[in-house]
């Protein structure tokens, strides 16, 4: 039995190995036919003419994620502080499951909600056709809220109470003790929550595809459409063949490397926190 248990534990290692192998084995041959530099820095994506530049999508992914953070990070962190230090336990009892529910809603439902409510709203209030980076960022901000809230709340709760008591003893109020003593002590945990949120935002596909317009050109403004790396794969994989198909798998490779780098930063921050 021990062997069987060990074998199932090792499936994780095996799975990561297989994912890496197949992704790189099917994606890298593309670079034999097309220069990797042109692929990453090319600003034009025209598979029919054999031009594969994914810079617009790389920029798109980062811009949408940046927008999501601009909105989601402050709301998430402040909500976490509220839940950890200001709200009564009765309020927290309601908020915890609500945040978990927010995490559980499928991305296709988020996308549908965005398409039916946020897109027309944006079109009427701000102009453009509504399918935009703006809506995609708002939707992503909502989707990464639970990740940021849960991680930050855990980090704030992990700060020893003596910090708080010490601050009170120095004559500080409850509020300033929270903001000047506790939150700074939980900083690295909060940052790691935000990094985890970035990872989720970069990897999100379905919801963005439904609201972002998906034009494969350099982003021109927040009310204009945008295409991300993830959407590029999902949108064209269905009918792509040959070199075009390989270019999409190569897009996946680029995305994979970006996500791995973000995860590495996350575990680096976490490890440093444990050491402290």
């Amino acid at each position, binding site marked *: *039995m*021990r062997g069987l*248990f*060990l*074998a*199932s*534990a090792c*499936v*994780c290692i095996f799975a990561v190995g297989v994912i890496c192998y*197949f*992704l790189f084995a*099917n994606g890298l041959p593309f670079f034999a036919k097309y220069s990797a530099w042109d692929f990453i820095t090319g600003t034009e994506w025209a598979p029919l003419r054999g031009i594969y530049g994914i810079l617009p999508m790389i920029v798109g992914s980062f811009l949408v994620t940046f927008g999501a953070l601009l909105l989601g990070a402050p*709301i*998430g962190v*402040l*909500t976490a502080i*509220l*839940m950890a*230090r*200001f*709200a*009564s336990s009765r*309020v927290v009892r309601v*908020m915890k*499951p*609500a945040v978990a*529910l927010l995490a*559980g*809603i*499928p*991305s*296709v*439902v*988020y*996308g*549908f909600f965005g*398409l*039916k*409510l946020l897109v027309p709203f944006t079109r009427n209030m701000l102009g453009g056709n509504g399918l935009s980076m703006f809506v995609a960022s708002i939707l992503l901000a*909502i989707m990464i*809220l639970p990740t940021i*809230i849960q991680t930050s709340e855990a980090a704030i709760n992990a700060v020893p109470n003596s910090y708080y*008591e010490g601050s*009170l003893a120095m*004559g500080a*109020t*409850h*509020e*300033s003790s*929270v903001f000047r003593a506790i939150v700074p002590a939980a900083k690295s945990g909060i940052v790691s929550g935000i990094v985890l949120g970035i990872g989720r935002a970069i*990897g999100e*596909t*379905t919801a963005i595809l439904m609201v972002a317009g998906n034009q494969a050109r350099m982003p021109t403004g927040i009310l204009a459409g945008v295409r991300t790396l993830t959407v590029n794969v*999902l949108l064209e*994989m269905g009918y792509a063949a040959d070199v075009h198909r390989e270019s999409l798998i190569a897009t*996946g490779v680029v*995305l*994979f490397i970006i*996500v*791995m780098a973000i995860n590495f930063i996350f575990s680096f921050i976490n490890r440093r926190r444990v050491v402290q």
Partner: protein
Amino acid sequence: MSETGATTPAVDITVPTRPSMHLGSRFLKALCWAAGFVTIGVLLLIIAYILVNGLPEFFSRDEQGTLHFKASLFALKYNSRNLSMLPAILNTLTMTALSLLISVPLGVGGGIYLAEYAKPGSKLVKIIRVTAETLAGIPSIIYALFGMLVFVVTLQMGISMLSGALTLGTMTLPLILRQTEESLLSVPMSYREGSYGLGAGKLRTTVRIVLPVAMPGILAAVLLSIGRISGETAALIFTSGTGTGIAGINDSGRTLAVHLFKLQEEGRAVGASFAVAVVLLIIVVLMNALSSYIAKRLTKKG
């Protein structure tokens, strides 16, 4: 409202309040409440919007103006007129069962190894942890490529429920593995010692004594996985595909989430889309509620 907050320290200290000072902190506190309201408000908005628009879609009025349940939404066969979601519901059940058949045994077995058998801090354990973390962080579109390249093409399973289930099984594996390990580790050592003292072996102790105590935690992870599986779209479109019938293991079949995505993409039947969204939402709320109920019972016992 309880202005001073719930988490005052165990020692009873009267918190000094000097409204003239630390205006900035008081402002920040107000911002915290505002952020909390936004978070809850957004959730309520999404749920209300879907329900208000979706629930009426389950009913239709006849000439006399009486309400009837729209049974055509649940016809056995899908066609472009009735837009039935029954095949998609059944496919979701099949997909969930198949995926769990893969991820639960592997996840629970692996969790047992990590918690009960492995030497803590050994190199292998470290590698398993890192890879499980990696698996958990991989976006679903990468799983879609993985499933397509490995199961659909290389292993020649074609676009089928089986390919989709193997993909989602891999995707939910780290969730179940980690939760199993954590639940097992939280079982007090004395249980194991008592069992050994009565002459039971390692395996017997693990399976008969420790595992049942950890069961609620594992169950909570399984319920969360069900939520993830029924809500997944990107990883399924190129693995289990978009077939509209009731799918067998080797057929292509769309789950509810994929159904919603396709209806939307085809740009028709807004009403039916809302109805599907309602069903999806209900599944997720139900799984979350059950999972937190079980988790609560677990903490009460502990």
